[in-house]
């Protein structure tokens, strides 16, 4: 029985029926990671010992009937900006190279309670700032689809670990597309939940008004199962929502009849790869054939989304990252004469180039004389974009677009031109500016054989729309199944 070809829910079922032991699955998975990950560098830390201990505990609870959820005993791994008690959480930065949290993120706590087995921590862009996973202090992640290419970012490790079958599912975080774009580049499926759906407690902050944790998996069903576990109100996060949680597994229903899908005209006026455009429009046609009503419409102001996003995200980052002072935790420069020198040298040596660039940009747009011209203006643009989406969702259940304008990029080609790299986020950042839920799933391949991602955005708290439409499309098209 090859457990690596199974989805998370399939493995969970076998474990639940005791056809496969948890310890057996964990041991095989750890061995596979050790053999395979040299090629991809998706893992920063593999926590074998903790995983073996937890496996025995979870198996015992399954045997006693105390654990019977669909993901009990299934191994997983999480992005290294999600705090894990007693296990290094580095944010892929020299700054946090030796940081060991004293607590678990709420999402981790909930997964543990559901019987998840954490196998390790996954590589990413430093502090989640980047679109290629090349800014990691621990070296670039490589795309399992083509190791000469980037898996995207910033959740490149979580996407690569699922795409390579090293792990059954993972958690990523999405501030401007950091779950969706890597999924698009690696042929995996991911959800950025509505802002406030999943607690941010224990997620190391980048841009707090955008950050959301979400699942990356082999298909829509697995994503729904993981989202079920991690979502819900948490008093430890002041922006956590009390809105109805629901059971996302119940949204795995085939059929999109009467669903209204809008395609923003403006998105297709942006420069994008012709093969990506064709595949996405073809997917739209498939939705029509399956019974949905699909039409083009005008989504105003979206061309301002990326600049507004980078202003606000950098501003929030400059504030959030001011906590790294070299004293309480994190990298500390040696032999400093006074406290100012300690702050400056610790931060200058501890942060990488892209992180410093965003701190500088953030402090610039917040500084006296520029605040109104940049930061405040970007917040007003954010409101205009939100209204534009609100208006669209009076009419549509889903907005359909590509996830990224291109397929996976070659390693080493993106970092030298930040503006070009930022503009690749054109389709994803709006969901963060507006707090809306977004999903990405594969919808084809280009002539080089690289996966193309389809993005679905829904109204606030309507992940159900995305899951139903995504499930239907996936069942119909069978892209994932065809590949593995």
């Amino acid at each position, binding site marked *: 029985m090859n457990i690596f070809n199974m989805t998370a829910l399939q493995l969970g079922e076998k474990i639940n029926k005791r056809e496969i032991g948890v310890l057996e699955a964990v041991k095989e998975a750890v061995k596979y990671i050790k053999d395979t990950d040299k090629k991809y560098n998706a893992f920063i830390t593999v926590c074998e010992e903790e995983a073996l201990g937890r496996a025995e505990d979870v198996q015992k609870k399954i045997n006693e009937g105390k654990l019977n959820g669909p993901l009990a005993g299934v191994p997983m791994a999480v992005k290294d900006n999600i705090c894990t008690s*007693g296990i290094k959480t580095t944010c892929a930065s020299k700054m946090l190279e*030796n940081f060991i949290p*004293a*607590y678990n993120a709420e999402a981790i706590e909930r997964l543990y309670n559901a019987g998840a087995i954490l196998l390790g921590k996954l590589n990413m862009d430093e502090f989640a700032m980047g679109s290629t996973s090349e800014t990691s202090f621990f070296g670039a992640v490589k795309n399992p689809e083509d190791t000469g290419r980037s898996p995207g970012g910033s959740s490149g490790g979580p996407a690569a670990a699922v795409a390579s079958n090293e792990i059954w599912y993972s958690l990523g975080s999405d501030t401007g597309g950091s779950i969706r774009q890597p999924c698009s580049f690696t042929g995996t499926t991911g959800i950025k939940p509505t*802002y*406030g759906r999943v607690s941010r407690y224990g997620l190391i902050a980048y841009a707090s*008004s955008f950050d959301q944790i979400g699942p990356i998996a082999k298909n829509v069903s697995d994503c729904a199962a993981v989202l079920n576990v991690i979502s819900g109100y948490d008093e430890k996060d*002041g*922006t956590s929502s009390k809105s109805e949680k629901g059971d996302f597994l119940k949204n795995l229903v085939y059929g999109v009849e009467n669903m209204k899908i809008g395609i923003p005209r403006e998105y297709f006026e942006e420069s994008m790869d012709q093969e990506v455009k064709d595949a996405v429009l073809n997917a739209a046609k498939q939705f029509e054939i399956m019974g949905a009503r699909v039409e083009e419409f005008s989504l105003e102001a979206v*061309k*301002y989304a990326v*600049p*507004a996003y*980078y202003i606000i995200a950098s501003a929030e980052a*400059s504030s959030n990252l*001011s906590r790294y*002072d*070299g*004293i*309480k*935790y994190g*990298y*500390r420069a040696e032999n*400093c*004469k*006074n406290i100012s020198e*300690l*702050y*400056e040298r610790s*931060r*200058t040596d501890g*942060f990488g*180039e892209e992180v*410093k*660039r965003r*701190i*500088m*940009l953030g*402090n*610039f747009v917040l*500084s006296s004389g520029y605040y109104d011209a*940049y930061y*405040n*203006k*970007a*917040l*007003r*643009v*954010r*409101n*205009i974009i*939100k*209204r534009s989406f609100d208006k669209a969702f009076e009419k549509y259940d889903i907005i359909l677009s590509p996830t990224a304008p291109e397929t996976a990029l070659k390693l080493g080609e993106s970092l030298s031109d*930040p*503006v070009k790299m*930022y*503009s690749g986020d054109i389709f994803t950042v709006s969901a963060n500016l*507006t*707090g809306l839920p977004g999903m990405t799933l594969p919808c084809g391949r280009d002539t080089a054989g690289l996966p193309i991602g389809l993005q679905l955005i829904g109204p*606030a708290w309507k992940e159900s729309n995305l899951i139903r439409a995504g499930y239907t499309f996936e069942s119909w098209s069978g892209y994932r199944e065809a590949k593995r």
Partner: protein
Amino acid sequence: MIDDKTINHISRLSRLNMNRAEKEKLKKDMEDIINYIGILNEIEVTETEPLPYIFSTSNVFREDVKKESQPVKAVVANAEERTENYFKVPRTIEAGNGK
């Protein structure tokens, strides 16, 4: 637009102390980025309120009840320099300046 004075000012605000070469590169990058975000000047915004947060607009209060804190030892263990349960920092008040 981004001159040496601005870069030095922003570096100070950021508590970063980069060398000359790094600063030159940053100056160019920031100029490119600021040119790029200049597109926002096209759009009329005066009629629209700024939107710093999407959904929550009110503060969240809780009862002032004592709860267990994180284990002090594990928290302090992350500091590079410490004495018992204290963080160690360089002297912040210069000695011998008193009159």
